């Protein structure tokens, strides 16, 4: 199959991933039905994971692996969960992206991977304190369009 990421992009990604500290696992939830971009998203993530050994990808099916999907609060495909990997343990950071990460969102995915790899949000102390003491669940949905 033809590669989605050309050599120039791969070399830029490699450079960015040189900053990776701890391992990161991407979980892709795909679906056999009504998923125009699932196959392409899978190929994209597999090409990315091949760039650096600190980055891995696991592919799940939204229906067949309903238990895993529920565990990560995933309800649509394709959804990418960007999680931390500590030893054999996959640790959910509540970070998801629904859709194929193309254009600007490809850069965001790379930054998400670096963010999780660093294990540090970089937010101010006051904001961290507020978020750590939330009494109600918080669900943020950031809508974007391909550019």
């Amino acid at each position, binding site marked *: 199959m033809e590669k989605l990421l050309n050599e120039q992009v791969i070399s830029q990604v490699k450079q960015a991933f040189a900053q990776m500290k701890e391992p990161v696992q991407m979980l892709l939830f795909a679906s056999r039905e009504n998923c125009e971009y699932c196959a392409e998203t899978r190929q994209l993530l597999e090409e990315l994971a091949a760039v650096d050994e600190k980055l891995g990808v696991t592919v799940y099916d939204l229906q067949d692996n309903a238990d895993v999907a529920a565990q990560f609060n995933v309800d649509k495909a394709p959804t990418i969960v960007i999680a931390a990997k500590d030893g054999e343990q996959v640790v959910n*950071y509540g*970070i998801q992206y629904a859709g194929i990460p193309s254009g600007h969102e490809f850069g965001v995915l790379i930054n998400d991977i670096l963010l999780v790899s660093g294990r540090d949000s970089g937010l101010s102390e006051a904001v961290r304190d507020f*978020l750590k003491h939330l009494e109600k669940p918080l*669900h943020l*949905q950031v809508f974007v369009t391909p550019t």
Partner: protein
Amino acid sequence: MLLAHQIAMENPAMIRAEGVEATEFPDLANQFNVRGVPQTVINAGSGSVVGAVPEPNLIAEIKRALN
């Protein structure tokens, strides 16, 4: 979107931050009246922020939506 993801990692037991490609999920975008991107929808419409706003603005809207 990165800011929302930074927020989630501080307390993943309570927070889920999801980027959504609006053209792939138009029903969801319509449900929340998404007009401009990026648009951040808080707790299924309790709050909403249009544009890439700085951290204090998003946190203020989150606080307002949670109250």
